[in-house]
């Protein structure tokens, strides 16, 4: 399978994260008579090479960035799981009988991860559009999107909610929340106008 036009998403990733213009041009030029697999392989390799050289060139900045990203991932993911559980328990207290029937699609959760991740990337891109001018709103939108995703996950995929502890299936829920927040970050990064890492 050949590609006449390289994937826009792949080119966006290149433009956003790879500093070497000549390398980007070579990849775009080669995409015309190469397979999609070849192009993605090259793009992912270029991203990895850029990451390694950025870390080597600015180890302190890279370490700070990774720590902040990990902290945000953990905080927003934890927030999403807790908010979703609080919300469901509040609904139960207010005669929310429908939550009793949660988890009817529990067996299909693994199939929901791809669309959930895609939805997260799209949400992240929307948030990325307002990220620079309205950072507080962007953070709130992130939390709201992640909490909503966690709640929907809770209702669709976690069975018999009232019979379970306050946070049932914590590992599963946390994994889903982290996946969603990771997708949000990727979406924001693909569109945000934050200052890029220094060119090498």
């Amino acid at each position, binding site marked *: 399978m050949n590609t006449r036009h390289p994937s826009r998403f792949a080119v966006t990733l290149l433009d956003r994260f790879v500093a070497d213009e000549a*390398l980007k041009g*070579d990849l*775009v*030029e080669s995409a015309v008579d190469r397979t999609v697999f070849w192009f993605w392989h*090259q793009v992912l*390799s270029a991203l990895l*090479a850029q990451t390694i050289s950025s870390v080597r060139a600015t180890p302190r900045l890279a370490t700070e960035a990774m720590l902040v990203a990990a902290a945000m991932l953990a905080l927003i993911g934890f927030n999403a799981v807790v908010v979703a559980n609080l919300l469901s328990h509040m609904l139960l207290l207010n005669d929310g009988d429908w939550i009793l029937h949660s988890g009817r699609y529990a067996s299909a959760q693994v199939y929901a991860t791809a669309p959930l991740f895609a939805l997260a990337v799209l949400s992240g891109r929307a948030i990325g559009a307002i990220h620079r001018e309205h950072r507080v709103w962007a953070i709130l939108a992130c939390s709201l999107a992640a909490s909503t995703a966690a709640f929907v996950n809770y209702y669709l995929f976690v069975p018999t909610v009232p019979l379970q502890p306050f946070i049932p299936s914590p590992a599963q829920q946390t994994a889903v929340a982290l996946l969603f927040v990771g997708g949000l970050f990727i979406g924001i990064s693909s569109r945000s106008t934050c200052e890029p890492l220094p060119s090498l």
Partner: protein
Amino acid sequence: MILLSILRVGDEAYGVPIAREMETTGGRTVVLSAVYTALDRLEGNGLVSSSMGDPTPERGGRAKRFFRVTPTGLKAVRQTRKALTQLWAGLTQLEGGRS
């Protein structure tokens, strides 16, 4: 291998033809970013020099980076050939085999 590929491609030696030359002669897929990493290192060591060309539409408006082997690089290639030739000489285990 990269230095030889640049020499074989000639004046139009930029990333794409260099990688194609390596794929043709080496018989395996080449990762372009790895080629650039090696080229940057070779340029840092003074074995190659590079210059930017004009942006072209088929590359999304991005310029080509042309590479040339410097006299120091040529000297290194000759030394490597000499060393490899000496290493190959007299290897009886490799004589008469299919590959």
